[in-house]
Every structure is written in C-alpha cells, then in structure tokens.
C-alpha cells in the first residue's frame, strides 16, 4: 500500500513541479515540441530512479559532510550515461535538448529527492519514489508541450492536427514566457481542486 503511494503521490497531490516547485529550470525550455519533452521526461525518470537507488544503497557508508559531493558524482555519472546514449541513438533530439540534458545534474528534483527521501529509506522504496517523481515531472512537461505545440504550430509530435483547417500557428506560444504562464495556469487549476494547498 505504502509502495503504491510512493509511485502515485507525485502524480497528484505532491507533484514535484507544481507543488514542491522543483526542477523548473530545465523543464520549460524543452516544451516547445512534444517529442523532446517526452525524451527529457524519460531521461529524468531514469536519473531520479537510479540516483535514488544508488544513494539509498550507499546511505549508511557516507559521512554527511561529504554527501553533497558524492551525490553530485553519482548524478553526474548517470547524466553522462543518458547524454551519451541520446547522442548515439537519438541525435536529432539530443541536438534539440542541447545543454538541458547536462542541466539534469542541477535539476533540483534529483538532488531534492535524494536528500529528502533516499538517504533515509530502503533501496526499493527509494527507487519507486524516484520513478514516481520522475513521472510527475514528465507529466507536467507533456501537458505544457501539448498546449505549446498544438497552439504554437498546430501539430502534435510533428503530425498536422489543426493546421490543415487553416489554423495559423500562434508564434507567441513558442516563446519562453508562454511556458511560464501555462505552468502558472496549471498551478491555478490544480490548487482550485486541492484547497489544502492554497496559501493563506
């Protein structure tokens, strides 16, 4: 039961992006199109899951003074792995993501979950927590990218959806500020349904 909530809580009431306000940095720039957003989401799921697992396995052996640097080494290694795999098998997407793959290292979700969860829990639970938070992050990315690609260029995954009916892409949606405004609106809707999260 508890393991299930590790996986599902980040999708709703405890979403890392819109509730914990973590990992916005690298999140928004990759949401112009759906494809890079999905790839970015998968990469982050992989990194959060395995960094949580590894740090949870190591948690009793690390003095707390040097834990930050150990975390950075573990996370950076995983990110290098992701980056090399993307370059080898999905070069176009890797070009679109540019520096944002490298920025998964400083993505606060990864670091935040390791600090807040993995250092105090067993490996399997931590792994699920990582997968859940990665999924929560990916979900927000996909929602934002859906609206930006649909209204910005009239396509989804590059397939023509509404442009064929004479829809002219609203290029404002492709500019960075609109991603912020969409996230603001998602938070608005989410908190209207979850009244306990509202600030007094």
């Amino acid at each position, binding site marked *: 039961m508890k393991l299930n909530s590790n996986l599902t809580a980040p999708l709703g009431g405890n979403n890392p992006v819109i509730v914990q306000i973590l990992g*916005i940095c690298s999140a928004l720039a990759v949401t112009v199109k759906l494809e890079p957003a999905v790839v970015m989401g998968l990469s982050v799921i992989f990194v959060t899951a395995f960094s949580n697992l590894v740090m949870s396995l190591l948690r009793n052996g690390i003095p707390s003074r040097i834990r930050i640097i150990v975390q950075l080494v573990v996370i950076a290694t995983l990110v*290098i792995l992701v*980056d090399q795999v993307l370059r080898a098998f999905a070069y176009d997407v890797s070009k679109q993501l540019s520096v944002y793959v490298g920025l998964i290292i400083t993505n606060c979700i990864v670091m935040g979950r390791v600090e807040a969860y993995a250092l105090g829990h067993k490996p399997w639970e931590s792994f699920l927590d990582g997968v859940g938070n990665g999924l929560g992050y990916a979900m927000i990315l996909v929602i934002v990218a859906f609206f930006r690609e649909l209204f910005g260029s009239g396509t989804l995954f590059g397939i023509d959806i509404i442009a064929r009916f004479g829809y002219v892409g609203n290029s404002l949606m492709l*500019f*960075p*500020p609109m991603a*912020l*405004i969409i996230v603001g609106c998602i938070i608005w809707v989410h908190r209207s349904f979850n009244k306990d999260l509202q600030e007094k």
Partner: protein
Amino acid sequence: METLNLFIRSIFIDNMVFAFFFGMCSYIAVSKSVKTAIGLGAAVTFVMVMTVPLNYLLNQYVLSPDALGEGIDLSFLSFIIFIAVIAAFVQLVEMVVEKFSPTLYNQLGIFLPLIAVNCAIMGGSLFMQQKVGESIMNVGDSVVYGLGSGLGWWLAIVMMAAIREKITYSHVPAALKGPGIAFIITGLMGIAFMIFTGIQL
C-alpha cells in the same frame, strides 16, 4: 565592440531567467523580499564570474579534443568536471567567508551551499562551452560572459522580489497565490524583456 555586445546580450537578450529559465528554483523560492534577493544575486554573480573562466580554461586545455595529446578526447567528461569545479568553488567560498567574515556568513546562511545546485551557474558554463569559437574567443570574453549572465540573473530576481513585495496588497485569487502568480508575473516580465531581442551593437 564584440565584447561589449556579448556583455549587453548576456544581460538583456539572453537573460538567464527570461530566455532560458535557469535558476528558477531559487528564483521562485527566494524572491519574497528584496533584501535577501540582493544578497543571493550578489553571491550568484560572484560565483559565476569565477567559475565560468575556470571552466573555460579546463575546457580549452584539458577537455577539448586533442588538448592533452593527439587523439585524446575527454569532452564527454565535461559535465562531471564542471559540476565538480562549481561545487568545490562554492565550498571554498563558504569556508573563506566563514573564516573572515562571520557576519556576512550568517546573513547568507543557507543560500551559499544552495548556489552549487543553481542551474544558472551550471548553465552559464555549458553555454560558454557552446559559444567557444563563436562569441567567446579568450579568457577575457568568458569573464565578461560570466559577469553579464550573473548580473542578468541578479536584475531579474531583484525586480521579481520588488513586484512580489507590492503584490501582497493585491487581491490575487486564492488558488493563484504564491508560486502560481509568481510564474505568471515572470512570464509577463519575459514578454517585456523580448523587446531587447534583435538589438545589435
């Protein structure tokens, strides 16, 4: 002229927050009062001015292809080297400040270690790596780029903090209070900053 252009570009046009969303976590979390925003902005700018040139030198003389010797290409290590430099530098700054100025240390408090995971700093180094050979030609340019990006971030967080101090008197819908309205304000500020796009010196 090229250098001045790079400086102006990195502050206004390629602003870390409005154009690339870098450093958003601390930007949203720490922009509740102007005073702390100024402190954090200064610390970030300082760390960027130091780490971007350091990483530039490492990139040129260790990491780039054939830098260490014929056929040795270490560029896949750049993420781990950059983050190690940044983390080590932040640790160093923390120890120096603690030793020589305990008052400043207490004022900055938790912000100092937080800088290590501020994406603006890592982002600055990664963008510097992309710009090598295009607009960044030597160490001087990398200092200018670090300074400009840091100042741009500082400007953004101080403006945001000022707006959020004022907004406490407004009637924001309950569900939008806090982070929601902060995102929307940032978006609107970003639209305002778009007027700088295309300015060439």
